[in-house]
């Protein structure tokens, strides 16, 4: 019995329209995401992976970016639906975390306030209930001393902790999809592993689907069940992670894999 698709992206084309000549950055992008799946999106800088992710999250400006195709979530086309419907989904059903936790958090707002934000927008919970949920969420992402952290500001935390805060904020409404755009790139290697473990746990415990974007293939290998390889705006290869890594069909994929430091490649 085929599982229903949570997210179906068909023929997504993204064009930049803020220059004189339109520039296409994503061509014919297709993606299928089931509930509880972890899918990886890999490629070098400029391959179009972040753009595709931002499009799915509804974060691309409708003015400067012309998008063709469909992004179907629960039967709703996120590219053409009313803004209000899109907003109801953002932070609630589809959440996103970004690469730079320092700049992705508001420097003048307290941590607790930022973690609760999606609750404030999407639920009717009162102050006390939100507080409880936030503390609970902070414990789930393994943040130490949550009560104290709640009142602190982003600049008082380390990079790894900030990223955990981002994850807590993104997960607090229990979204069905979490889009993670290079969440570990700006972090230390040891912290990277922890964050990946955390994401794995979230997926296991809450059945959250994860779209994991990275140029770090070793991490993708650890985390993702399926992988899409992008180059120059196109998907060049796709399939279950094991297969793609073991028998890469495209030359580009082969080169990418070959570029992983030997230890990591053979270690797993």
């Amino acid at each position, binding site marked *: 019995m085929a599982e229903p698709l949570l997210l179906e992206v068909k023929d997504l084309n993204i064009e930049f329209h803020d220059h004189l000549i339109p520039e296409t950055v994503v061509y014919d992008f297709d993606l299928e995401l089931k509930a509880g799946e972890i899918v990886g999106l890999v490629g070098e800088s400029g391959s179009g992976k972040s753009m595709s992710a931002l499009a799915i999250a509804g*974060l691309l400006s409708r003015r400067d970016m012309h998008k063709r195709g469909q992004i179907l979530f629960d039967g709703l086309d996120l590219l053409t639906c009313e803004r209000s419907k899109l907003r109801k989904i953002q*932070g609630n059903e589809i*959440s996103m975390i970004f690469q730079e936790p320092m700049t992705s*958090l*508001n*420097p*003048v707002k307290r941590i607790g306030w930022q973690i609760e934000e*999606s609750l404030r*927008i999407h639920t009717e919970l009162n102050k006390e209930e939100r507080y409880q949920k936030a503390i609970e969420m902070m414990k789930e992402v393994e943040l130490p001393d949550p009560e104290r952290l709640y009142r602190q500001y982003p*600049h008082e935390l380390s990079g790894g902790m900030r990223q955990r805060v981002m994850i807590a904020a993104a997960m607090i409404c229990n979204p069905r999809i979490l889009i993670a755009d290079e969440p570990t790139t700006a972090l230390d290697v040891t912290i990277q592993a922890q964050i990946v473990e955390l994401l794995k746990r979230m997926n296991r415990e809450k059945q959250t689907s994860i779209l994991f974007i990275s140029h770090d293939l070793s991490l993708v290998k650890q985390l993702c069940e399926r992988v899409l390889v992008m180059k120059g705006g196109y998907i060049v290869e796709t399939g279950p992670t094991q297969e793609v890594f073991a028998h890469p069909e495209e030359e580009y994929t082969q080169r990418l894999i070959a570029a992983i430091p030997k230890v990591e490649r053979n270690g797993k």
Partner: protein
Amino acid sequence: MKYVVRKILTMILTLLAVTFFVFLSFHVISGDPATSMLGTEATPQKVAALREELGLNDPVFVQYGRWAAGLLHGDMGTSYSYRMPVTGMVANKIPVTITLTLMAFVLMVVISIPLGIYTAKHEGGVVDRIIYIINQIIMAIPPFFSGILITLIFGRIFKLFTPGGYVSYEKDFAGFIGYLFFPAVAIALPKAAMAVKLLRSSVIKEAKLDYVRTAYSRGNRTNDVLYKHVLKNALIPVVTFLGMALADMIAGSIIIEQVFSIPGLGRILLTSISNRDYPVVMAVIVCIAVLVLVVNMAVDLIYGLIDPRITAE
């Protein structure tokens, strides 16, 4: 807390340094105060006697100390020209200047904040472009000229106020405020124009930062992002500017007082400069300096309230 204490200490130290500098400068330049005071009655004996009486033979530091101590007690010395206590001459001018400056400040804030936000939000739109042109023109008009124009247009043509008809706050407070309104506008306009420009570019810059994207990703509306996230950050450089503007406006009121015949600190400063009545000059400068320093300190404190990164040790 440490931040607050630090700022207060800085203010006090700066005040000491400034008053000393002012005192020293005038001490050096002013020649013999005794001779000035006695004027035509100056004979060597009288001068010597007066010098003794005024303690002018003591070392500079002692004289400064005496003057400064006097200031703290509200005694600003004696005017050369009028032989009266300066305090009496100056005291009733202070509320006038403060009121004028405060009104100008309030006008500036009330005009510029909404306009700055609006033009940032509708960047590139018709209103934005028009405001840009108006801003550029206003910033090029010296306040005293706009004062003159205002006098002409609103005073003479529309007859909304009587040019030169200053109303004392003791006699009629409402009339006092009413008369000060147009001068306050003249002072506020150029600063408001600058504030609009600054706030606009600050908001536009902030809106491009990463945390804004995060805010949208949580489902915020544009207005929510603007007011709950961006504004607080965008106001930070504006607060600094507003503080400087307030200090500038205190100085600007000096000129405007001339245009509208307002008996404030500015007027008395100017007359005493031309009369070489140094005790009065010093006293007024100290008054203005105190006001400026207090304003600066207030700005620093507000700054510390808004931006938590500043007070981090």
